[in-house]
């Protein structure tokens, strides 16, 4: 028992980087007699543990403004700063939904790029702070991958789903976000990138700074966005053109030789001037002339529910509106006010009929 606790004290010191030379020799001798333990020690030494859970970037800016100047943020925040207590409420809400994501990384060799993955599962949010200080708020059902060795490699990440990025400025090292349809290159800026695989388009909405969007199918066509602008790139057509070599192109695909690209201003709420593209940060669900089917995909992500249509006609019904802080039932009741449909909950699934 005495010997056992001695081993573990030494192992703990080794893993914590507290071991001196004499102790190193002692531990090496002990581990030489127990290869399995030696392997475990190596694995634990190479593993990094991290609990995610961070202060939202806009709250940090608020804190800094308060501490340094005791005034409101100078930069345009994603949300209006009218009521402080309301913002606290949202800060708390974000954390309730936040998955406390921790990760243990086991690396095998130094040559390969090891990717660390942070997920926001359906019904949750996740806040990520990258080693360079860049912060990303991940919307429900999204995933961000970054090299484990982020600081010593290029600033490159992969996004599936939707993220609100506040990229730390570093002119020498551009920050590149890869998605299935586009790559977005930035130097230091705030923007929203929406790239859900089950949606028809990839949307890059710029709040401040500058970004350069490259479409995979047209590498030489670089779109520069100005603050307050967004670009939508059609995912479906990109996919069609990509796969055309192997399969015969359909009639609709043949009429398009390149992805549909739309550049336009951000959409603002006529009442409170809030930017709609980033309204999800406040748990607002916004839909503009979307089919029920498209809307259902959003609801499934945001509430972690499964929606099944038993009536194909209602799938195509179009909805426009904005809801905030409603339960799924409340939301469905609101939708029922504009279009006729029924729903029931069976075995945790919502059936629309």
């Amino acid at each position: 028992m005495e010997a056992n606790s001695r081993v573990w004290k030494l192992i703990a010191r080794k893993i914590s980087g507290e071991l001196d030379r004499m102790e190193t020799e002692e531990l090496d001798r002990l581990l030489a007699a127990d290869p399995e333990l030696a392997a475990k020690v190596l694995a634990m030494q190479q593993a990094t543990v991290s609990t995610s859970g961070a202060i939202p970037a806009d709250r940090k800016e608020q804190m800094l403004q308060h501490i340094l100047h005791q005034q409101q943020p100078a930069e345009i925040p994603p949300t209006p700063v009218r009521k402080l207590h309301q913002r606290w409420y949202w800060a708390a809400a974000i954390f309730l939904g936040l998955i406390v994501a921790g990760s243990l990384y086991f690396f095998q060799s130094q040559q390969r790029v090891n990717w660390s993955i942070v997920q926001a599962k359906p019904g949750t949010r996740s806040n990520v702070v990258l080693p360079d200080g860049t912060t990303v708020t991940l919307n429900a059902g999204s995933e961000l991958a970054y090299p484990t060795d982020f600081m010593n490699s290029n600033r490159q990440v992969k996004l599936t789903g939707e993220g609100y990025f506040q990229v730390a400025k570093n002119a020498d090292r551009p920050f590149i976000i890869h998605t299935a349809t586009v790559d977005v290159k930035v130097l230091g800026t705030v923007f929203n990138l929406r790239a859900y695989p089950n949606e028809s388009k990839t949307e890059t909405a710029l709040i401040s700074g500058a970004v350069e969007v490259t479409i995979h199918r047209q590498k030489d066509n670089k779109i520069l966005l100005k603050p307050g602008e967004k670009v939508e790139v059609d995912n479906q057509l990109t996919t069609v053109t990509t796969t055309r070599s192997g399969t015969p192109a359909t009639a609709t695909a043949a009429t398009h030789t390149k992805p549909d690209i739309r550049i336009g201003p951000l959409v603002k709420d006529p009442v409170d001037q809030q930017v709609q593209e980033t309204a999800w940060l406040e748990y607002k669900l916004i839909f503009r002339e979307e089919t029920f089917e498209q809307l259902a995909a959003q609801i499934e992500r945001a509430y972690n529910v499964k929606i099944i249509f038993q009536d194909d006609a209602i799938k195509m019904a179009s909805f426009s509106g904005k809801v905030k802080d409603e339960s799924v039932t409340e939301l469905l009741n609101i939708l029922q006010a504009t279009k006729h449909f029924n729903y029931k909950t069976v075995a945790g699934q919502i059936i629309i009929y």
Partner: protein
Amino acid sequence: MDVSLLIPRIVNSDEQAFRQFFHLYSDRLFRFANTILQVPQEAEEVVSDVFFNIWQRRENLGAVKNINTYLYSAVRNTALNYLKKRNPLASAATIEEIDTPQELTVISPDKQLISKENLEAIARVINNLPPACRMIFKLVKEDGLKYQEAADILQLSINTVNVQMGIALKKISQQIKIGQYIDL
């Protein structure tokens, strides 16, 4: 980023340096405060209070011997004061009395290397460590603090820190399945 280079600039009222300093520590300190308080809103307030005081008395920052110990201790004390405010009748709260189960989701960057179940088992062990043990483990392994720093912050002996780290690692190692997933 080397903190020791930022400190003299902060003492000279360099706001940019203070901002870097804030971003370097705010999330770590937030997580530490949240382990004690379990209320993110309060944990944010604690972090804000601590940095507010540092900026107000920035001319004293140059005299701080160990910035890690200084910051974490300030957060610890402020957080314990919040706990006392919450329940004024409770006797002086200490770190050991805090029981704060935390959910941890574990993601493997390389699914071939170690199975998801195995990583989840490891995370479960970490989450189920006794509060003081888990706090020590996280300060040392996650935040990279020295034994002496963790001991000073939690007001424990350095030997206690060593013993608790040993306990934590022994439990974790029992969950690691060597040969099955890890090719060494």
